């Protein structure tokens, strides 16, 4: 695994089961009904319950630290939010290293679902030791 500019992060695919959507909503302390109550989500024009934003941020962070390893220190996550990630769909993350200087990396991340881009953005992280992860 390389960490040079242009190198790609391994893809991460997450099946958005209702259990996943509900358990992440509750773990993020977000009790808004559209994240756990199918009837209320449909009444508001959604086709099903969907992932909350705190989880999207958490998954972007997880995607990058899965690759960078436990020594990585996340400094910034900037996400543009797109289409909803509904229960029953699959969320696929891809990423590319776009800058690197003195142990600080910026990774461009894209999380896609069947409807299109759910989240696109950048993560900036620092590594305690130059050269990792390689």
């Amino acid at each position, binding site marked *: 695994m390389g960490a040079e500019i242009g190198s790609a992060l391994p893809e991460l695919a997450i099946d958005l089961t209702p259990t996943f959507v509900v358990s992440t909503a509750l773990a*993020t302390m977000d009790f808004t009904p559209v994240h756990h109550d199918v009837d209320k989500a449909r009444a508001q024009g959604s086709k099903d319950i969907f992932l909350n934003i705190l989880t999207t941020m958490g998954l972007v962070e997880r995607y990058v*630290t899965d690759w960078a390893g*436990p020594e990585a220190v996340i400094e910034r996550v900037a996400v543009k*939010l797109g289409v909803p990630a509904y229960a029953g769909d699959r969320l696929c993350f891809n990423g590319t290293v776009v800058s690197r200087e003195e142990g600080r990396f910026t990774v461009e991340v894209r999380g896609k679902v069947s409807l299109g881009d759910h989240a696109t953005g950048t993560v900036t992280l620092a590594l305690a030791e130059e050269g990792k992860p390689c």
Partner: protein
Amino acid sequence: MSDEELHELAGKQAALGEVRGTPAQDPVNAPMIRHWLDAMGDENPAYLEKGVAPPAMAQVWTMPGVRRSAKDRSPVDDMIAALDASGYTGVVATNCEQTYHRYARVGERLTPATRFADLAGPKRTALGVGFFATWKVTWYGEDDEPVADMLFRVLKFRPRTKAAPAAADRPAYPLQPAINQDTAFFWEGVRQGELRIQTCADCGHHRHPPGPLCPQCRSANSSHLVASGLGTLYSFVVHHHPPVPGRETPFVVGVVELPEGVRIVGNVVDCPIEEVAVGMPLRVTYRPMDDQLVLPMWAPSKEEA
């Protein structure tokens, strides 16, 4: 509220600066971190080993519970309530940007502080006409140093779906503008919340209403500029009769002089008719007439053109 009043409120909310909320119910703690990592499928051992929280949990510590509604009234709440009351009831988040100054440590209690940053719009979007509202939350540690910052932006829009009451109550506006190759840029501008004035691409002369030829140099090459949106009432009539389909009489039809050097015809709104006066400063405002058409209109302004 008119668009101008919404912007005024936004200015007031921003002027409140950073408003502190109550500290988190619980200090940063291992059970909530473990639950979060488990739900996310995050196997990074560093957090629990080092006694710190995943930085993306910043907001979690100060979320209200199931039955615990937010006790604090932040500068954002009044803005959102005003947008709801003005028909912009739809909401969708568009941006979330978090900066972590350091990782929060197990045992410390975070305190949030909210600052209203910006209201932009009205803008035509795929979801409907709406405003982008942006605010910032900073979480402070017990040392009063910021631990994390979040910029959050939402689009508050007027839902366009036929099922939505706002649209159902709003029949199609019977008067539609003629949109052709000479005027399309103007109406496209209105949809985007821009007042576009035609400009000759050769001699730079500004002209309105739009047309195919420059009256100055006869060139057919045209471009446009985006006007400041400020103007001065040059002349007006109050229309009482005959009835106009889709409009309630009386209403004011004004000729507005723009600092860009052209005059434009439009309704003067948000002003009692007896207070309308030649020379009054105006600012453009965009009014949805039905779920397709938006018209530029003119409201009293404190700023001189």
